[in-house]
C-alpha cells in the first residue's frame, strides 16, 4: 500500500470535482455535437412562399389534421396543432396595412432543444434531419413542449376518436405530438400532405443538401428567412417573402 492519507484524499477530491463538472460539460458538448444531418446525404427542408399563401380557409390545417389524425375538438384548450396559420398585421405609418398569413409548424431544428431536454430519448433527430417523437416511449412529461421556442408541440389531453387516415396510428392520450414532415410519406418518396395539396403551391419540400433541388436553389438566393434566428437552432423551414 503505497498511497498515504494525503494523496488518497487529494485523489478523492479530484474525482468528486470531476464528477461535478462532467454533466455540465457534457451538455455543452452535446449542444455542439448534435448538429445531425449536416454531413448526411439527405437533409429535408421546406420553403414557405408567403407571397403565394393567401390564407385561404386555412386548408392546410385541415389537410394536416386529416392526414395525421390530429384531433380537433373545437376548444382552444385541448386542440392539438401540427400546423397552424398565423394571421399577422403590421401597422406602419404611411404604409398600407397588409395582412400576412404565416403557416407555422415544427421547424425541424438541427440543434433541437426539445431533443436535449427529453428525459426518455423519445424525441430524437433522424439521420435525414427530421425531428420525431417515438410515441411508444414518450411519458408525456411535457418538458419538450416548454423547450420548443416555436410552440410546435402539443400534448394530447383528451381521448381522440379521429382516425381519418388508417395508415397513420391514431393519437394516444398522454403523449406529445408535433409535425413529422409526414415522415411516413417522405419515406415512400412522396411530399408531405400540406405540400402536395396546398391549392396555391405555397409550400415547397426537398433535400437541401442536393444543390439541384428546388429548395436548395431558393435557399441559395438568400431571399428566405428563418424564424427566431437569434436562437441558433438551425431550423429547416425557410420563409420566403417574410
Amino acid at each position, binding site marked *: 500500500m503505497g498511497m498515504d492519507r494525503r494523496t488518497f484524499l487529494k485523489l478523492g477530491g479530484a474525482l468528486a470535482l470531476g464528477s461535478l463538472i462532467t454533466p455540465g460539460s457534457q451538455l455543452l458538448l452535446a449542444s455542439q455535437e448534435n448538429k445531425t444531418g449536416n454531413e448526411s446525404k439527405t437533409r429535408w427542408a421546406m420553403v414557405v412562399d408567403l407571397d403565394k399563401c393567401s390564407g385561404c380557409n386555412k386548408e392546410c390545417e385541415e389537410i394536416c389534421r386529416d392526414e395525421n389524425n390530429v384531433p380537433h375538438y373545437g376548444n382552444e384548450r385541448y386542440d392539438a396543432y401540427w400546423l397552424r396559420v398565423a394571421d399577422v398585421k403590421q401597422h406602419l405609418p404611411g404604409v398600407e396595412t397588409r395582412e400576412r398569413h404565416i403557416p407555422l409548424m415544427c421547424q425541424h431544428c438541427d440543434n433541437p432543444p426539445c431533443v436535449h431536454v427529453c428525459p426518455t430519448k423519445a424525441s430524437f433527430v433522424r439521420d435525414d434531419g427530421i425531428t*420525431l417523437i417515438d410515441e411508444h416511449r414518450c411519458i408525456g412529461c411535457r418538458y419538450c413542449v416548454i423547450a420548443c421556442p416555436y410552440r410546435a408541440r402539443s400534448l394530447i389531453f383528451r381521448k381522440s376518436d379521429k382516425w381519418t387516415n388508417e395508415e397513420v396510428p391514431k393519437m394516444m392520450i398522454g403523449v406529445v405530438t408535433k409535425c413529422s414532415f409526414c415522415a411516413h410519406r417522405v419515406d415512400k418518396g412522396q411530399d408531405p400532405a400540406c405540400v402536395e395539396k396546398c391549392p396555391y403551391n405555397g409550400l415547397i419540400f426537398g433535400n437541401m443538401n442536393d444543390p439541384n433541388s428546388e429548395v436548395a436553389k431558393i435557399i441559395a438566393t438568400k431571399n428566405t428567412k428563418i424564424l427566431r434566428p437569434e436562437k441558433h437552432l438551425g431550423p429547416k423551414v425557410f420563409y420566403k417573402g417574410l
Partner: protein
Amino acid sequence: MKMRAIIAFLAFLIVLTLPFLVSAGSGNILQSVQAPEIELPDPELGECVEDVSYMRANHMVLLKEERERAVRHGERGDYSLSNCFSCHTNITTFCKRCHDYAGVKPGCFEIEEGCHYAPTSND
C-alpha cells in the same frame, strides 16, 4: 401422536392436489387444453415472411424490431403490422383466438383501444 401427524399431512396433500385429481378424473387432461383453431389465410397469397414455427414463437420480436427501424430510421420493411394485415385480413379469427387463449393482449390494437388499425370481422 406420530400417526396423527402423518394422517394430517396426507389429508393436506390431498386437499392441495384436489384440483388436479378432479380434472384428471374427468377425462384426458390433454384434451381439455387443445390449442385454439385459427383461420389461416388463403395459401394462394404465398409464403409468410418467415416460416410458420418461427413466426409462431417470434412474431412479436419481429414486430418490435420493425417498429424500432421504422420509427427511428425510417426503414419501413416487410415485418410491419400493415404487411401482416395484407394476408391476415381478420384479427378476430387469427390474432385474437391465440391471444385470448394465452391471456396476452396485443398492445398494438387492443390495450386501451390501441393506435394501430387492424381489420376485424366487422369490416
